[in-house]
């Protein structure tokens, strides 16, 4: 008999809702955590939706970062717009690893608004993708 799970399944869409809530808080920690959750919403929602619709088979590990970034750029998925998911990732990496002041002039420094807007645009496009027909049809 399976034991009670330590962590129950999560819908990564709730990360985006959390990021939205945190973005309106004044604390620096909230803003940075919002940026982190926004990236994970873009990444995990893309991964899970692409898997559900038959485009990919995830590893469910950190390998999926590369897998999703490259897959989103496929012409039958987002095309070049998929490049924006990796832009969010680099912005998130800067925000999470560099605890010093981050200035607008720094490469990869992006406003939280841009990160949230870009995340929503990617998620919306991925949600609107058709279910991939099975091979051989």
């Amino acid at each position: 008999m399976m034991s009670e799970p330590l962590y129950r399944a999560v819908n990564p869409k709730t990360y985006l809702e959390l990021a939205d809530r945190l973005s309106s808080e004044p604390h620096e920690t909230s803003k940075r955590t919002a940026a982190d959750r926004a990236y994970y919403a873009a990444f995990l929602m893309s991964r899970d939706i692409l898997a559900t619709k038959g485009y990919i088979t995830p590893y469910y590990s950190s390998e999926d970062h590369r897998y999703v970034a490259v897959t989103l750029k496929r012409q039958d998925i987002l095309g070049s717009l998929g490049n924006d998911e990796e832009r969010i990732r680099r912005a998130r990496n800067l925000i999470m690893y560099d605890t010093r002041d981050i200035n607008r002039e720094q490469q990869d420094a992006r406003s939280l608004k841009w990160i949230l807007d870009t995340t929503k645009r990617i998620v919306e496009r991925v949600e609107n993708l058709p279910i991939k027909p099975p091979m051989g049809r």
Partner: protein
Amino acid sequence: MNSNVILKEDRPTTSSIEIEKERMHWRVMPPVSSWCSQQVSGLTATTSPILEPIICYVTAPRLDSTWFVDISVVTPRTEVIYRNQLAVERFLGDKGKRVLERVLSLADNVSQEQNWPLSYIEIKTVKDSEVKDWQYILVIFNFACDFMTADGYLHDFYRKLDSLTNLLDEEEEDILRRMLFFDVGTTI
């Protein structure tokens, strides 16, 4: 080049003649050893011009066959700055370098056609520390405008890049997806 096509199509049929079909100047290609080296953010950077012949059709009123005008115009092209060009080329390989050249040529053409305030293009390798063996080439378009305007230019470029992708073979398309990523920077 696209500009040639436009000029050809615009050429009147009765009141003008093509007085010169001039292959305009190639950008002078200095020997590799003399390419300008400079310091960018503490790293050695090498600049190189994008080499592409500029062909221009010139029309003028049909007046006199001796009335030929010698026009020599060198169009300024986008400066490309590599951060460790050797590492970039080694990573891309021969076919990857050709894909990058096509992308840079496309960017240069779009920039000229749409009057982008593009200051320079920076190219470097990026390693993602969180994912094992994940490395790619980052092409950064540095604009003399605010970030949101620059972001809009990048999204315009995405559409052109998708058109280019349709012309690539399978291996080239794979290189574009896996090895090349794009971003913008601002210089003001």
